[in-house]
């Protein structure tokens, strides 16, 4: 297992978003990340 280097907010969150959603920009990137977050929190 790796280490969660993204635990801080908003720095870690933003850094992770740029790493895993690289091909979307601006509001679309944010929206994709929010939907993933919703699945992980509610699902």
């Amino acid at each position, binding site marked *: 297992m*790796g280490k969660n280097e993204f635990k801080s*907010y908003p720095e870690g969150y933003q850094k992770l978003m740029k*790493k895993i959603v690289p091909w979307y920009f601006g509001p679309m990137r944010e929206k994709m990340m929010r939907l993933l977050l919703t*699945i*992980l929190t*509610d*699902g």
Partner: protein
Amino acid sequence: MNAKDLKQSRVQLFRDAANFKRTERIPHFANVVTWKVFDAGYTLDQAMTNFDVLEDTVVKFLERYPVDGLMDVGIRNQFTVTEAFGQGGYYYYNEEVVGIHDHAHCTVDTLMDYLDDPAKYAWEVILPKKYGESWDEKGLDVWKKTFSEYMRYVKYILHMSSVTGKQYGLPSLSPNNPMMGAIVLGIEELFSNLLGIQQLSVAMRRSPDQIEEFINRWDAERITPAIEKIRNGKGPNYKYCFDSSILMLAHNVMNKKQFERFYWPHMKELLDAYAEKGMNVRIFTEGSILRFADYFKDYPKGTLTFHLEQDDPFAFREALPNVCIMGGMTTDLLANGTPDECVAYAKRLCDELGKDGGFIFSEGKMLSYRNDANRDNYKAVCDFVSSYRL
């Protein structure tokens, strides 16, 4: 008829029924979820994370049962995404059951923290609490794998939309695409995720002002913009069977006084906007809604369709003759009756509730478990409803 024309004719049929226009036949929106997995010869653990199997269950269902709509086209559960992230999800499954553990993201005292910044709250509170010590081990490889599964899931949704729409002429229920902003009232979010059933029930009595403050802010930030969008929009969108699909569940733990304070003002504002634009709204009233019938009696025919779960449809028609009924068929009969008994009851529903429009045949309860229906009974009912002429 090709699939495109078939899809459009089905949308028209649902819209006509919702608008209380006489139709040649009663449309059938199958309220079938995981029952079709068993019916196709699988167990749930074989299907839930295998998109090929899930697609097979949908195709087999649509090949066998002549329905006009299907509640779940195999895309409801996101286990591939949550499992890629690791153990700890609220939803679970085994061979026979998919379930969800009651959970609460907040306490009454942290509700405003959540509203201040939901992403921050999820990041700093919900996810660390939910995943415990393993949260510290969610390295980049886990996140990449999870995001990759998420994209695969999105592609699968688009694929299934194409399979059901372009091959089988099946319309979508409503444009409640989360990317477009699904409408969830604050009270329902409290019930389902933020406080859970137990905490909300207690909080409505002990901390009503805090609950009201949360709901007012949630709806000002989320529902008011949606209402503006509805009012400034073009009205009905005939690409879908309904213009909106809303879930009501939290009312089941409320008395009338609580309903009037926490639920109705926000619901009314939303429904009034749909009514002004002549739009069709489906409300899935889980549990029972009959004791709150009076609140809905002034809406014009065509605005509301209530998908009933436990209420008697004939009593409901008496109470609210202005509201289209969706549902009626009981799993009790589908599971334990004979094909003749099931068809006789289906005929009664169509004749008594749908003669002048205002009725969409469906199952009250989502068919989920193996024994929710006997397949011969279900086949007999589907064949009857699709061929019966009023």
